[in-house]
């Protein structure tokens, strides 16, 4: 060792590497603190859309129709009953014309009268008996007829019912076939229309939420814009097609639309067709 070696050439080991690692560590920690500690993301709470649906736009079920005609045959069956009473008066009517002929000769007349009386009484009895019998017969016949009629009516009713049912079924089947298509189409249309309406409401709400109304705005002016959209819903361009007359407000609406990018688009392709690639947008402040 050189004793003359000057102190100025002396070195001393310095933990440079350790210090460097620590310095980097401090910065990394600070960066992490900044990134995770402070919420740099301005997250506007997404507007919550609630659609209140009473029920789905229902198409009347085709099966419901046929049962309705069924009650109708009953009125048709009821009328046959009233014709039953008339036969009674018809049976009594022949009696009166006999009486005037017996009053012309006295003696004969009396005997005859007696006889006739007896005859008549007999006849009356017989007639009564006959009548009774006839009535009973008639009643029986009536009953039988009624029963028949009833049976017939019921048969008819049943036939009618069956017919109706068959018709109904056939119609229902036909209807079902046609209606299935129509219903599917209309249901789909309704669904698409519903989705479209829902998304129009959502887009309006989003744009409205982003609109900063100029302070000098009066009334409720309408702005129409042509918004060109990418399929993802991102706004490509906005063009005012009908100004509200207030350029500041027009500007605010255009900015709001741009700021609302991406617009909420429906997942359904048909529904999306109403929005992409161009959307005519009507905006009112209130």
């Amino acid at each position, binding site marked *: 060792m050189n*004793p003359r070696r000057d*102190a100025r050439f002396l070195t*001393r080991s*310095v933990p*440079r590497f350790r210090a*460097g690692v*620590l310095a980097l560590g401090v910065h990394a920690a600070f960066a992490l603190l900044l*990134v995770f500690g402070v919420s740099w993301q*301005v997250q506007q709470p997404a507007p919550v859309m609630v659609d209140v649906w009473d029920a789905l736009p229902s198409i009347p079920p085709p099966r419901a129709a046929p049962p309705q005609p069924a009650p109708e045959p009953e009125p048709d069956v009821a009328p046959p009953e009233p014709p039953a009473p008339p036969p009674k008066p018809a049976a009594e009517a022949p009696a009166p014309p006999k009486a005037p002929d017996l009053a012309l000769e006295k003696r004969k007349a009396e005997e005859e009268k007696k006889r006739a009386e007896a005859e008549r009484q007999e006849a009356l009895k017989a007639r009564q008996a006959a009548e009774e019998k006839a009535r009973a017969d008639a009643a029986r016949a009536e009953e039988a007829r009624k029963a028949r009629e009833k049976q017939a009516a019921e048969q008819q009713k049943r036939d009618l019912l069956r017919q109706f049912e068959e018709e109904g079924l056939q119609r229902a089947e036909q209807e079902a076939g046609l209606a299935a298509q129509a219903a599917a189409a209309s249901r789909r249309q309704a669904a698409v229309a519903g989705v479209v309406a829902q998304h129009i409401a959502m887009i309006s709400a989003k744009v409205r939420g982003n609109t900063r109304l100029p302070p000098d705005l009066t009334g409720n002016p309408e702005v129409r814009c042509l918004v060109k959209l990418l399929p993802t819903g991102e706004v490509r361009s906005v063009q005012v097609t009908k100004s509200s007359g207030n350029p500041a407000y027009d500007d605010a609406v255009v*900015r709001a639309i741009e700021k609302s990018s991406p617009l909420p688009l429906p997942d359904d392709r048909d529904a999306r067709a109403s929005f992409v690639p161009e959307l005519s947008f009507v905006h009112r402040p209130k």
Partner: protein
Amino acid sequence: MNPELSQDLSLLHLILNASVPVQIVMALLVGASLLSWWFIFIKMFALKRAQRATDAFEHEFWGGADLNLMFKRVSAERDEAGEMERIFEAGFREFMKLKQQAGMSASFIMDGTRRAMRATYQRELDGLESHLSFLATVGSVSPYVGLFGTVWGIMIAFLGLSSVAQATLAQVAPGIAEALIATAMGLFAAIPAVISYNRYTHDIDRLANRMESFMEEFSNILQRQTKAA
């Protein structure tokens, strides 16, 4: 999408979207901050080591150890010796050399010894104080550099605003936010630098006082030896 209207205020996004002067300022400040923290840690270790070594040496020296043995040990490991040990070594070496030469008066020997010790003391103190001026500079200048970046960024933001018919806060907000990051970086670099600068100068002052006291006391001891010799 119009970048001016985007509300994405992520830190990285803001920094990357800043104008070039602001980005330069930010890079400068990050560099200054990294370097100042590096020096802060280097100084921290160096001062800790110096204090420990000084404590140990004073303990040994005033514990009545043999000066010749101590000198041999210290000169054998000069590179790793503490500040006070080096002062002791330089003074003792000079003292022995002068003492061996004939016809040297006591005051001459003592003057030479003192000069040797003072020179080593200055050099050691210089070593201890190295880089402290950098910390002082970062501490005093980086807020201004950051402020410059902020002013520039806000200027750009307002210039951009002038071309728009209707001014809204949303148009200047990102620009101002990105500009303010420069100030934040300046402060982040400056605050630790100032704190550590103050603390280290204080620590070094105390060490310097101890070394000067030791030099005086050691001179007394050597002077007694010249008388004795």
